[in-house]
């Protein structure tokens, strides 16, 4: 029963396992933001500098009128103004991302000031974490309104990534409905990062567009489809040769074909596959785990808490809802009981029982102190008797027998 001190010690560094995405995600966003700025600047630079030179040359060789020169300059000015506008919006976003990151770092920092798991502060911190995990789970499952509402009520909007998930949800939903536009736009925005990804989302999307064209069965669309394939599919021939050959073969099969693999290429559930692929790619790009963090925390927690008694056919003497001296075990509580049924239970090397255990004639073991206290509280027990809080049987005090548990 000895509670060793090591078990309540809080090692903050180790404790951050679940919180990696908290800092990683805004950082990925910031990097993406920075890349966009860089790209915009580069693009304008590559336009403005040569254009200036050209104008100058043209002017010197006198094959340009003054109006043309002025027009060229005007064009440059308007492009630069456009660049400025873009940069300003991105800068605003950047600032927001960084202030969010700061709040998150601060949140994690508070954990480093807590040294014991028994500290009240840890309790508060862990509650915030649970809210974060729940919001994360809701967002991933598509319960956006609930997530937003919960984040608002708990005032943790800076600690969760509502917008990111809402966007992700929107695109995956559009794929489910057979729309590639949003997803392709997203691919375009993240082109550089996607090159490193092992999933070839863009190729699959283009292939799907091609399939849709062929599906119509209209000869006119076939030409279009072939042009599409040449433009978008052919460049990745090194990596995707099988798929490209199949795509070519698809032209020979009608949409109700029974022949594989063409049947599954025409299958409507390919859209579901695309949607899942998008979500996977998206999460990977932003360093998000593929599973909701709540699942990870829960499956570890359920196992750590579960004991053989939790799903036993016999009511446990040590933790049940029948007596005030015990508290109900969370695994036995209705909420988690079914969920934990198939989980492994925790490993223990030492027995853990109440001090001074006694056994009643019906085989139930209790701490003597607790049993006596409980019996004196219950009104209907005469002096010199004890009542079994689990079964309600009443025994003589003398019938209690010492039991030795090693």
């Amino acid at each position, binding site marked *: 029963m000895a509670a*060793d001190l090591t*078990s*309540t010690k809080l090692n903050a560094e180790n*404790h951050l*396992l679940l919180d990696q995405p908290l*800092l*990683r995600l805004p*950082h990925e966003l910031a990097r993406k933001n*920075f890349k966009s700025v860089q790209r915009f600047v580069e693009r304008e630079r590559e336009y403005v*500098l040569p254009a200036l*030179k050209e*104008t*100058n040359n043209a002017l010197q060789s006198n094959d340009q009128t*003054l109006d043309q*020169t002025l027009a060229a*300059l005007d064009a440059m000015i308007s492009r*630069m103004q456009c660049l*400025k506008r873009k940069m*300003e919006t991105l*800068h605003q976003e950047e*600032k927001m991302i*960084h202030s969010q990151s700061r709040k998150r770092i601060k949140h994690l*920092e508070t954990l480093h000031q807590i040294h014991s798991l*028994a500290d009240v502060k840890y309790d508060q911190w862990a509650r915030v*974490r*649970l809210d974060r995990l*729940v919001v994360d789970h809701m967002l991933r499952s598509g319960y956006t309104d609930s997530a937003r*509402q919960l984040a608002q009520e708990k005032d943790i909007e800076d600690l969760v990534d509502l917008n990111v998930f809402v966007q992700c949800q929107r695109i995956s939903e559009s794929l489910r409905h057979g729309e590639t536009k949003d997803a392709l736009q997203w691919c375009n925005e993240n082109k550089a990062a996607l090159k490193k990804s092992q999933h070839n989302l863009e190729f699959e999307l283009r292939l799907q567009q091609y399939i849709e064209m062929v599906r119509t069965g209209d000869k006119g669309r076939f030409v279009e489809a072939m042009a599409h394939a040449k433009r978008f599919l052919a460049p990745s021939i090194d990596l995707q040769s099988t798929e490209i050959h199949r795509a070519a073969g698809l032209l020979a099969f009608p949409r109700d074909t029974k022949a594989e693999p063409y049947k599954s290429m025409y299958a409507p559930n390919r859209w579901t596959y695309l949607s899942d692929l998008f979500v996977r790619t998206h999460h990977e790009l932003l360093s998000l785990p593929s599973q909701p963090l709540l699942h*990870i*925390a829960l*499956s570890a*927690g*359920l196992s*750590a*808490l579960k004991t*053989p008694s939790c799903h*036993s056919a*016999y009511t*446990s003497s040590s*933790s049940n*809802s029948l007596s*005030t001296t015990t508290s*109900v075990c*969370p*695994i036995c509580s209705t*909420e988690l009981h*079914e969920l934990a049924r198939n*989980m*492994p*239970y*925790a*490993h223990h*090397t030492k*027995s*853990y029982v*109440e001090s001074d255990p006694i056994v009643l004639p019906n085989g139930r073991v209790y701490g003597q102190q607790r049993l006596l206290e409980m019996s004196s509280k*219950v009104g209907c027990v005469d002096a010199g008797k004890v009542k079994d809080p689990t079964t309600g049987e009443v025994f003589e005090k003398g019938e209690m027998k010492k039991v*030795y*548990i*090693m």
Partner: protein
Amino acid sequence: MDLVQKEHERLSKKIKASQSINNVQITIDSLQAARDAIASDPSQASITLAKLQSSVKSSFDSINDSLKETHSSLNKYSKSLDKLFKDKPLPSTEHDALSSQEHLINRAIAMHLLREGQFAVAATFLSEMAKKKAMESQQQAGSSASENAATLLDIDEVPSNEVRKQFATMYYILHEMKENNNLLPAIQWSRDNSEALEARGSNLEFELCRLQFVWLFHGGPDRQGPIPTGRQVALEYARREFQTFLPRYLREVQQLMGAMAFCPNLQDSPYRVIFNNPSAWEDVAHSFTREFCSLLGLSADSPLYVAATAGAIALPTLLKLQTIMKAKRTEWTTENELPVEIPLPPSYLFHSIFVCPVSKEQTTDENPPMMMPCGHVIAEESLKRLCKGSRFKCPYCPNESHPREAKKVFL
């Protein structure tokens, strides 16, 4: 963590000080100026353009410089993050047994929200879930969706209305108690459930009434009221209500009455603990919540919270285990038991645990703990192995007994 904080601060500073937008503005200005100059004086056009070329180029260069600085700060911050999360991979999900039980998780969340008193969020959540379910059933069943929708909804009818109502009641009572110092709803509830409470050995009803007495004694709703009136009211209350408590709580009632005599000088009396207990309201609210949840078969603290927290505590250990197992290419030998002990704080232990001192295994329904006549307990399988059907010596004392005499115990 300090490093991350420092790097982030540096990064933010860089971004705040970033001149790139200013530089763009400068470029625009110089372009504009050149344009105006050329328009007004076409003869100087080529010189103006040549100047312009160099000034635009230099401002682009300085934009790039400032971008480069930001980039290097970003990279440094990246590195500090990498360092912080080194050896801490994102928890892998190879053994994710939970995704298939999404509806159970959602139910747990809904109940968690209810028990935390987040009724509005819970309502939104439930309606969103119902919507999703209706949509799914429509997609699956097509035309027969209409008749299915109704049945599908109550298959695992996420916290039934009954539970929701119960929690609403609980929060109403707690609210009355904390905000308005009104104990009457709580007392009423405990009277309605007095039988169940008594079987549990709970003192809740008496505790509530005693607090009501103390509250009346101090003047009730208007605390500044004259003490004598308060005392009068409290006395009347005691006469009316305490009758039923007499057999069980004689001593406590006597104490309360005895305090009356010390009234003018309660501070120095032995009764001051009862009458000036600042945490009394908290305590009563706490034990009320506990009793309320217990009667519903629920634990007092949110199980979702306890489990998620325990999970966070357990994760480092489990992750370490996973890496070791991967390195040694072994699998768990027992599927229904974790292979390592996870050090949880004592407050996370709820059940008694019996590990057989002979086989070092935890006892289960199939292999229950058995007590020998001498009072020592071992697991049934160990017992069978030791005795081989005849009399045997207890492994812990000189006592000999027959396996028939061993008795199953419940921990």
